[in-house]
């Protein structure tokens, strides 16, 4: 159970022979993730951690019945790699790569829409359904199978909160990083809907940050449709000055848009709980 990735996931790794790709592939396999093939143009026919490497996504998908891709390809070549995955009819594509130009991401998203594919990221730590499947770079020891669904725009802040949830014995159903870039595929509203339908998920944590308006859209969704499961949020960046990128390319207040205050107010208006500090999230979950 959980959402997007699980026991049924059969993944290929694009960029499997790179330093990051290779290192993370080993960790994912150790976790029990079904990595069925890898792709690196020019390295077809070789093996990486006993996984067959192909020159093209099409061949890898065809020979191994893959349904998901995780992308570690360097930024300059990442767009082409993702477009190849989309055109090979993969429906879930997780893009770990950071520093992809926005123009490339926009093209990726337009193509994904046309082919009805879900892009997670770019610049995401990935997705983990504890005990079943890890497609990402998160430290697996922090996560325990359980009932809380987590969706976040940040990596380490998610680990901070997930670790406490594990310690308190609640565990996580699925934990999803949306990615720190200004233009990302999967968004909060889509994930909230998926968690609502997932039987394993009994409560949801949403971790937002400054920049853009994905949090406001999530608040608006809850305000209009209501939400059937307890929902706790945290928004990072109350102290962030306007016009500065705070680490993530997408964490920037432009003029007066994208402030933490605007997001917090939107959630409060929708009747959604907002934690003041990360440690309050678990306290609120235990109360609900």
């Amino acid at each position: 159970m959980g959402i997007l990735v699980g026991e049924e996931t059969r993944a290929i790794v694009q960029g499997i022979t790179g330093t990051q790709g290779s290192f993370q592939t080993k960790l994912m396999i150790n976790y029990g993730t079904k990595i069925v093939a890898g792709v690196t143009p020019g390295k077809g026919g070789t093996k990486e951690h006993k996984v067959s490497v192909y020159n093209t996504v099409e061949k890898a998908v065809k020979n191994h019945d893959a349904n998901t891709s995780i992308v570690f390809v360097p930024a300059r070549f990442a767009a082409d790699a993702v477009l190849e995955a989309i055109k090979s009819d993969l429906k879930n594509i997780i893009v770990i790569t950071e520093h992809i130009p926005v123009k490339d991401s926009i093209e990726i998203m337009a193509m994904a829409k046309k082919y009805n594919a879900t892009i997670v990221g770019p610049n995401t730590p990935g997705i983990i359904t504890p005990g079943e499947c890890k497609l990402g770079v998160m430290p697996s020891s922090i996560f325990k199978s359980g009932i809380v669904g987590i969706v976040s725009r940040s990596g380490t802040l998610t680990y901070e909160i997930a670790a406490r949830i594990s310690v308190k014995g609640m565990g996580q159903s699925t934990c999803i990083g949306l990615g720190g870039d200004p233009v990302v595929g999967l968004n909060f509203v889509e994930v909230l809907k998926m968690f609502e339908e997932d039987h394993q998920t009994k409560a949801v944590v949403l971790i937002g940050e400054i920049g853009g308006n994905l949090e406001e859209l999530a608040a608006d969704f809850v305000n209009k449709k209501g939400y059937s499961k307890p929902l706790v949020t945290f928004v990072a960046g109350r102290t962030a000055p306007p016009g500065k990128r705070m680490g993530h390319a997408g964490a920037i207040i432009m003029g007066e848009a994208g402030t933490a205050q605007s997001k917090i107010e939107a959630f409060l208006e929708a009747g959604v709980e907002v934690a003041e500090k990360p440690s309050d999230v678990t306290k609120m979950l235990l109360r609900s």
Partner: protein
Amino acid sequence: MASILKLFEHEAKTIFSKYKIPTPTGELVTSSSRVLELASKINVPVVIKAQILVSGRGKAGGILYANSLVEAELVAKKLLGAEIKGFKVQSVLVEEKCVIKRELYFSIAVDRSNRSYVAIASPEGGIEIEEVAKVAPKKIIKFFIDSLLDFDLHQAHQIAKKLGYSGSQMQNLAMILLKLYNVVIDFDAELAEINPLIETPEGTFIAVDSRIILDDNALYRHPEFKRRLTENGKSEFSTLELEAHKKGLSYVTLDGNIGVIGNGAGLVMATLDTIQLFGGSPANFLDVGGGASAEEMASALNIVFSDPRVDVVLINILGGITRCDEVARGILMARGRVNFLKPVVVRLMGINEEDGRLILKEGGIQILDSMEEAAKKAVEIAKTGG
């Protein structure tokens, strides 16, 4: 990087000229003695515009007018070298003053929630679009651009028509918008804005002010702008920010006295917020990223330790793949190197945590179990002055 890469107005206008977007006749001047040489090129009256990368320079006295070039020389002399909104004016743009019939707004921007480019137009030019959005949102015309189809002339015509133009004026306006889109695509811009785009009494259009922001992740495709991220005086960055960028660190200068270092953008932001929640004030944002080595940690600490405003440093490392012993060694190495005598508070979690704790303990550094405790401790120290 903690940067956004803005181009100067004159750079944006040079690009516009290449794309045949009409701009006022003008010249960039770095020395006021050159102003009189412009007599053959520029008609009076003129406008003298300070080339600085902050918005609101008009209100701050950065845009002045002159009725003769003699007067313009005096104005340029006054502006050059002056400080406006904290930025030193190193060059001014001397331009013919345009006669305005109507001011419009045009831009192509990235729409994050629609995951596309968007063309934005408004009949209320000359003021910031955010202002228009607040007082008269209905006046803003927005067209999302499908990047698989590109921006086409038909859409551009629609926008020009909505602004109330027809015939050749409508055609000309649409062409300007289309060219602006080409600028965005060709230069990997996150924003290209003309504000105001003026209509003259003769019915022509001129881009009087302009703003271009480039995507720093795409600079490998535009090497001519690459050095801008680390050059003095070519950006809005503080000295420490430039220093950090050279080392590839994500650093932002803030106002307070508590230095902060952590790994991961969200975690560092949350650490700053927690400090403020406890009544303290952070001096900076610094994200060392995942898997930082002792060397990387030391180079990050050098930046924070060299900031004279900092009274105490809070380090918050939550590692999955980060080795705590490496981090600990890096902290001690950097402290010794810059002879930093002020207190350091650490929260450390990850691989080899016990080793890391031991190393720090021996170095006389306080280790706390959670980021909240660590933040509280740092605020306490900052208040009592160490």
